[in-house]
């Protein structure tokens, strides 16, 4: 291997690729050759750095220079100035939103300071398409350790002791899950990786698969060894073409090295891997639905028990874990259960990857220790609310979760605390809302998603969610009553109580938690016909302030429904009955005479 003095790591995640990061790699390589440094500096494509807000990212090591929003046109300057002359390109450095300082070393970025990267340890660090880089970073050493030193039960015991819980949503103890699958005897067992990530805004699984596919393959083999399975299947949504292609490359490399197939590393352990593509149905993230789908049936959940660990894929014992869960496994094996369980809270160990989104400065993917507070995540890592607005709520757990409010800002985030607060961990979506967000509309938004994604098998979810959504729409349209809010509450509880699978059982959460925390907002909608956030169009009231109106008639001409009348040079009036709340008059008025309530 050539001895490079500098590495230029370019993010090759889906987000940055969409902003031409592939072109950047190309340009950088061309420029390096042009200045004759091709033996000194190496350009590499890596997985996601998490700081998607400011992509595409180019990181230069060893000096940890973090260039943001790089365009192909910037490459020449980076090479000529930084690589050739040692002068960092200041304008491309990350600017701290509060101090406005350009930060030269990514170690000093607040975004990274509170993060601990276990699942994402290799993302943005290695070339995911090069198995050698993975091996250089202790890749497959965990598998070797397990095969060489531990019995299956000992391996399970380590995972149990580590306290690792399922990262896909439920939070079921992973070691226990493995143990149950290992105890069920069968001629064939399966290890399934659930890569059917579907929460709106969540993309940690995709990033791991794109940035570190080998870690998943290694973990699945470890799991296979532990439970006695020789076949692994990754169920991945077909909308993740990059992750799929990286997995395929990784699989090929493993087979060439003999890390998949028969007699792995001469230990007599066989393990094969297969990919299955999902068509992007949210419900297929539910393990029984996922298994149905893999079997070629309509993807819909089945009644549990039997659990997959007893009767799963093709009726055989099957262990299903989510991508992020698997990503933790090799690290636990290598560094030990005690190391892992030293991170986190009493009942939630390790770290959790969150996808930060919404009204927050630093949108992106972060990995933080369990027990961190929302305040730290939002104000330190996330850089606070966009535009300096007031924080209102944060939705965790995606459409299955609930919203947390100001009073929860200092609650340590872990599985149990989130449930106690009426939300859930889910797969780790975290959507931040500010004062401009109407909570009724937020609940409606999530319901729209669950209505769309319901499989239709059970009545409470199929019809109930539809009715919840219709009711919310009615309230947003200013036709709701207090009885409607009560109806929402009862219906929501019944759906939780009766729906067949996790999707249905959690789908009313956004409604129930917004009613609980923002009851006043609901009341304002149904009793005062007012949307406090000013977001529900139907509830906006446009009036003309007579003192300010000059009678210029600009608004009259702008109004598409002729709702505005008045003599020239006399104050005009808006007919609220006719008004369709389009806001055209507001935009046109030069005298700020239009009042919106």
């Amino acid at each position, binding site marked *: 291997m050539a*001895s490079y003095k500098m590495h230029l790591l370019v993010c090759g995640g889906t987000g940055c690729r969409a902003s031409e990061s592939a072109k950047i790699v190309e340009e950088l390589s061309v420029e390096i050759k042009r200045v004759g440094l091709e033996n000194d500096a190496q350009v590499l494509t890596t997985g996601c750095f998490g700081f998607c807000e400011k992509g595409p990212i180019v990181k230069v090591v060893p000096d940890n220079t973090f260039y943001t929003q790089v365009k192909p046109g910037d490459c020449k300057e980076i090479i000529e100035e930084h690589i050739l002359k040692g002068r960092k390109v200041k304008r491309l450095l990350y600017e701290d939103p509060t101090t406005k300082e350009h930060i030269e070393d990514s170690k000093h970025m607040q975004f990274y300071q509170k993060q601990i990267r276990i699942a994402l340890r290799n993302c943005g660090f290695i070339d995911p398409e090069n198995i050698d880089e993975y*091996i250089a970073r202790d890749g497959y050493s965990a598998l070797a350790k397990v095969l060489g030193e531990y019995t299956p039960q000992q391996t399970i015991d380590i995972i149990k002791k580590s306290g690792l819980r399922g990262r896909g949503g439920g939070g079921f103890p992973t070691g226990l899950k493995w143990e149950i699958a290992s105890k069920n005897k069968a001629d064939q067992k399966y290890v399934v990786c659930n890569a059917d990530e579907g929460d709106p805004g969540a993309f940690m699984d995709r990033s791991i698969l794109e940035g570190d596919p080998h870690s998943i393959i290694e973990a699945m083999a470890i799991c296979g060894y532990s439970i006695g399975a020789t076949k692994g299947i990754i169920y991945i949504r077909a909308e993740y073409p990059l992750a799929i292609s990286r997995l395929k490359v990784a699989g090929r490399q493993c087979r060439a*090295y003999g890390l998949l197939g028969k007699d792995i590393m001469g230990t007599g352990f066989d393990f094969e891997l297969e990919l299955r593509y999902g068509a992007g149905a949210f419900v297929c993230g539910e393990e029984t639905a996922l298994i149905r789908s893999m079997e070629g049936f309509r993807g819909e959940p089945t009644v549990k028990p039997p659990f997959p660990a007893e009767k799963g894929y093709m009726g055989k014992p099957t262990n299903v874990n989510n991508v992020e869960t698997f990503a933790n496994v090799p690290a636990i094996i290598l560094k030990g259960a005690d190391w892992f369980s030293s991170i986190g809270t009493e009942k939630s160990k390790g770290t959790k990857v969150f996808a930060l989104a919404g009204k927050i400065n630093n949108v992106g993917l972060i990995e933080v220790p369990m027990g961190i507070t929302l305040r730290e995540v939002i104000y330190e890592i996330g850089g606070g609310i966009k535009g300096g607005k007031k924080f209102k709520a944060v939705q965790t757990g995606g459409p299955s979760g609930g919203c947390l409010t100001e009073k929860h800002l200092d609650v340590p985030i872990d599985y149990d605390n989130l449930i106690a607060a009426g939300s859930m961990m889910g797969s780790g979506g975290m959507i931040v809302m500010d004062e401009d967000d109407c909570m009724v509309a937020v609940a409606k938004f999530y319901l729209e998603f669950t209505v769309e994604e319901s499989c239709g098998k059970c009545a409470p979810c199929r019809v109930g969610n539809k009715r919840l959504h219709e009711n919310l729409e009615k309230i947003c349209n200013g036709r709701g009553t207090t009885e409607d809010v009560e109806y929402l509450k009862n219906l929501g509880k019944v759906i939780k109580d009766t729906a067949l699978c996790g999707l249905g059982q959690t789908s009313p959460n956004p409604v129930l938690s917004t009613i609980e925390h923002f009851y006043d907002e609901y009341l304002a909608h149904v009793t005062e016909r007012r949307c406090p956030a000013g977001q529900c169009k139907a509830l906006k009231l446009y009036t003309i302030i007579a003192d300010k109106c000059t009678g210029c008639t600009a608004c009259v001409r702008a109004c598409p429904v002729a709702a505005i009348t008045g003599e020239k040079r006399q104050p005009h009036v808006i007919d609220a009955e006719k008004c369709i709340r389009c806001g055209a008059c507001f935009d046109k008025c030069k005298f700020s005479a239009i009042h919106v309530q």
Partner: protein
Amino acid sequence: MNKIKSIDDLRKMKKDLEFGMNIREKSNSPESLVQIRVAMATCGIASGAREVMNAMIEKIEKDKIPAVVTQGGCMGYCYAEPTVEVKVPGKDPVVFGYVSPKVAVEILEKYVLNGELIEGIIPTNYQSINQ
């Protein structure tokens, strides 16, 4: 590609491959390493900074010295180029002037590994690496 036929094969392979990742591994925890910055502005390059840098990297790799070499811009000591700033953990940074590849190796052997001071130190009044 060769098959990995045993656990030892994998260990050996890892040893061989580690090397290529060194530069990135080191960047992960620079504070625990000796940080060496070679001034690589036009003046530095003109007086042989690149050769100095190459010599240091070679030496570090050969002797597995826990040090990381980065390049910096002009430090203002153009008269003394090539200049090299060395920051040993727990100590104040020291800047060496008129460094040749030979001196560079000497800095590593004497100052970095044994804590002996050698000639050519430029007195500084600011901290740069540890800003």
